[in-house]
């Protein structure tokens, strides 16, 4: 690789709590794939959805403080984050700050003005574009043969296309192709970019049980035995709230909801503390045991 893969890493708040397994498995596969992550020193919350619903300048300033912190790092190619919500906030702030007046308003809230010249990308984009599925495939030691997955991207990883600038905004394929590289079978899942109910699980629970319920129904209909996500909020709605969803809709789903980084990690031969599969609420053990059993039956 001629260009170094050293990036300023923005973990996001949920990576320290409800999506700790996403953060760990992201770090694990990046290490295995030769992507160097340098944590942004003393990073702070980007304000998530609440900030931009209150004020665009305040929201941009909360993101810009992190951009400013990243600018203190030497020799980084850009800023990367696993979380689509953080990604949207960072990219939207960077885009809006191209307007000089807007940037002046943001800078006036910060301790120092930011340069705003580092590209911002998702970890998924870096793995997909800088390495590519073939390079990932070349390192697979323990393919996920027989695992049928529905890749679910969530609403904002690729939209709006003018800002997110990655993959297709209606039918993204990055995770599909990485899952194929990891040896899994990818089911045709039509709701790749539909909303899961976002952060309404707390204030308006029926929004999540309805919208995430549709996602689980569709994944099951497509023959998937698991879903793959790239978003902490989507994962939480589908996994942690799967019981609530079943109760509200009279369904009986028992679908494990993996982070794509956990599945790639498994294919690369990582385990234990790197993957934290024990943090998932819908236990994937039986599914994975069946997968390995079918693999060894086929091999013998």
């Amino acid at each position, binding site marked *: 690789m001629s260009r170094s893969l050293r990036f300023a890493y923005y973990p996001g708040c949920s990576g*320290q709590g*409800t999506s700790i397994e996403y953060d760990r498995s992201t770090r694990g596969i990046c290490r295995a794939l030769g992507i160097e992550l340098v944590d942004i020193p003393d990073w702070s919350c980007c304000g998530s959805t609440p900030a*931009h*619903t209150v004020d665009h300048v*305040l929201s941009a300033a909360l993101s810009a*403080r992190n951009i400013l912190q990243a600018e203190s790092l030497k020799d980084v190619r850009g800023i990367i984050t696993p979380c689509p919500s953080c990604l949207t906030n960072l990219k939207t702030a960077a885009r809006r700050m191209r307007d000089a007046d807007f940037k002046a308003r943001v800078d006036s809230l910060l301790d120092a003005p930011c340069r705003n010249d580092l590209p911002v990308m998702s970890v998924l984009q870096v793995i997909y574009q800088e390495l590519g599925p073939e390079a990932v495939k070349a390192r697979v030691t323990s393919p996920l043969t027989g695992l049928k997955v529905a890749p679910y991207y969530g609403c904002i990883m690729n939209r709006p296309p003018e800002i997110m600038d990655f993959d297709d905004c209606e039918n993204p394929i990055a995770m599909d192709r990485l899952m194929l590289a990891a040896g899994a079978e990818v089911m045709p899942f039509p709701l790749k970019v*539909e*909303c899961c109910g976002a952060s309404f699980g707390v204030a*308006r629970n029926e929004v999540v049980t*309805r919208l995430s319920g549709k996602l689980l129904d569709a994944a099951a209909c497509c023959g998937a035995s698991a879903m793959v996500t790239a978003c902490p909020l989507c994962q939480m709605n589908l996994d942690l709230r799967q019981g609530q969803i079943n109760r509200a809709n009279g369904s009986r789903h028992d679908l494990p909801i993996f982070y794509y980084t956990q599945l790639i990690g498994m294919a690369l031969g990582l385990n234990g503390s790197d993957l934290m599969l024990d943090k998932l609420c819908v236990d994937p053990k039986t599914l994975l045991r069946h997968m390995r059993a079918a693999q060894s039956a086929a091999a013998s």
Partner: protein
Amino acid sequence: MNVINMKESYDAEFVRAVERESGQNVSLCYQCGNCTAGCPYTEFYDLPVSRIMRGLQAGQRDALLSCRSLWLCATCESCTTRCPNNIDVATIMDVLRHMARKAGKAPEPAVKTFCDAFLDSVRRHGRVFEMGLMTRYMARTGRFLSDVDLSLKVLPKRKLAMRPHDIVGKESIARIYERYDRKEGKQ
């Protein structure tokens, strides 16, 4: 649908303010309904998003700022992505919500309380403290039981930190909020 007397209720300054804050030209909307067709929240809305666009063209400030839809929009970007006239509809929804807040309207109080508790948590700690956020939300809304079943699932997983992750630079976050409050107060 209510009959609107356009002569009496057209608020030109309101339309100009939305256009200025969102950077969008609202007269471009020709009511194709694409935004509503793709909006996953239509079933929960009192006004579908294309009707909000129409109401905006008609300068219907009061009707729009008091609708519930503004508070239920998840910024999923479906409308923005699919509008044939490249109108950034989701940003318009955001701007209308800012205005509704300033006008003291919040027909979905639980949603507003959740946002406020979230931003308070960031202000106090620099990062979101999930456990503290939930505690404050429950204390303010009096809704203790809604997610108890989830707590029973999450606690054994040791995923929720019991103490806030204060960052070294949390004063610099507090300063962002203070400067913001000062600017807002002056306006």
